[in-house]
């Protein structure tokens, strides 16, 4: 058997895409049978990934409990085996997976998962410069059309059909999530890091749109356009939002 064939076969047994049988063809026996030896690796593979997901989605885990979380994790890992060299990315598709496969009695769980994921990614996002408040001075009537704002890599914008903030707060405080009344309402959240601390807060739909633009860098007129529903008030509202982003350290660069 070639090296490639040996690896392909062992891989399938360990990750569970092929039944563990005829293992003696590949593996030596001894105090343990070849099947038992494969199963040592299969168990380690599963437990390592399961534990990473439990850590990454501690709140989802708290809601579901061990047994139900493990059922979810097993289905997820099968559907989305790791494609990134770092375990940090293992959970990247879990919020969408939960949205596509809602849990009975907790259809909002994907939104909580997305908030957890955004927070943990914001915590470790690449470092960047933060524009000082004086940078707003670059905006003058002459430069207004050519000023570009770029947000820091720690900023994430989320859009949910329910406000999961009270739920997040309660679980973080060790309270029962069952006592939290959930309000179904379109909710946009911004997640960002200040120093080493991650924050999340609700923003208006218009501000969320502007933030989404700013993640990849946006010109001031584009940001004003996000507030167009306010008519003549669009520019002042955009500027007010941008000023708050700068004050909260969400803006990396202001360039003319």
């Amino acid at each position, binding site marked *: 058997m070639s090296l490639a064939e040996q690896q392909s076969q062992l891989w399938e047994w360990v990750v569970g895409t092929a039944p563990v049988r005829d293992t003696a063809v*590949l593996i*030596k026996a001894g105090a343990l049978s070849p099947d038992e030896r494969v199963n040592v690796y299969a168990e380690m593979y599963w437990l390592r*990934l399961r534990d990473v997901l439990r850590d990454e989605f501690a709140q989802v885990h708290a809601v579901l409990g061990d047994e139900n979380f493990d059922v979810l994790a097993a289905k997820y890992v099968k559907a989305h085996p*790791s494609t990134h060299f*770092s375990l940090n990315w293992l959970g990247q598709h879990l919020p969408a997976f939960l949205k596509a496969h809602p849990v009975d009695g907790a259809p909002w769980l994907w939104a909580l998962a997305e908030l957890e994921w955004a927070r943990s990614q914001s915590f*470790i996002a690449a*470092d960047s410069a933060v524009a000082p408040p004086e940078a707003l001075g670059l905006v003058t009537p002459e430069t207004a059309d050519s000023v570009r704002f770029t947000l820091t890599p720690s900023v994430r914008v989320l859009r949910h059909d329910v406000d999961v903030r009270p739920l997040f707060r309660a679980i973080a405080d060790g309270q029962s999530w069952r006592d939290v009344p959930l309000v179904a309402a379109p909710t946009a959240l911004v997640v960002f890091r200040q120093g*080493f601390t991650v924050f999340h807060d609700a923003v208006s739909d218009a501000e969320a749109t502007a933030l989404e633009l700013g993640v990849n860098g946006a010109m001031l007129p584009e940001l004003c356009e996000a507030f167009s529903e306010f008519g003549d008030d669009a520019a002042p509202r955009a500027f007010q939002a941008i000023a708050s982003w700068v004050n909260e350290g969400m803006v990396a660069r202001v360039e003319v």
Partner: protein
Amino acid sequence: MFPSLGHGVGLRNRHSSAFLEEQPRVDFVEAIAENFMGLGGRPRAVLEKTRRDRPVVLHGVSLGIGSVEPLDPAYLTQWKALIDEVQPALISDHLCWGRAHGHYSHDLWPVPYTEECLAHVVERVSRVQDVLGRRILLENVSSYLEFRASDLTEWDFVAEVAKRADCGLLLDVNNVYVSSRNHGFDPKTYLDAIPADRVGQFHLAGHQDRGHLVIDTHEGHVSDAVWELYRHAVRRFGDVSCLIEWDEGVPELPVLLAESQKARSVAAEVSAVTPTRRNSALEATR
């Protein structure tokens, strides 16, 4: 060939405040490379502070040098960037495989010890060292199975990789012990077959002894049998940088540092009675 850094511990989340705000007394620190590639925030700040205070070595877990799957160019680019930024005293990964069908297992699986695999690994190590621009240490992994196809011993395979690929070795003494119990060989035979000048770092760790199966858990104290094997390793390889790995049930920092101090005492005891290879080489030049 490799710097002697003394006695170190792994950089783990539980101790991040201590490394950020204090100066724990430890000679060097080992950080898991993948946890920092392209990332920032507090974890990166802890690493930056740590490396200002003492040497840092970077330990990779995802290279998959033995995988048939092509080397991941994006991964190597990020490795190189991190090395340039952190300037580690040593870099290492494992002599194992863990990728197939475009996926990562995030585990360290043993390779078959065959000529085919040897040629495969040697060729890849050379390419990795070219990209990274420096020599890498490859660590022996603990294993729970052996391939029928293997016609070399693990120690001959490891020694040949180091010689042919011109790389270093990270000798995990606990892994040698764990595998020796699982496959029934004499761990000292293993150590004695490893070329002395290739070993750039030691790992020591706790394991779980289930009798018919020994599992490399990185949890708990180093066992008496592994301390004994470490003595043998110091006699053979000398004053090699030695790191305690404790990743499960991570204890308070003083407990971890005490384990590292114990390694220092054991090594000092051995060196006092046995002129080690490096010590005697030093004396000869004086």
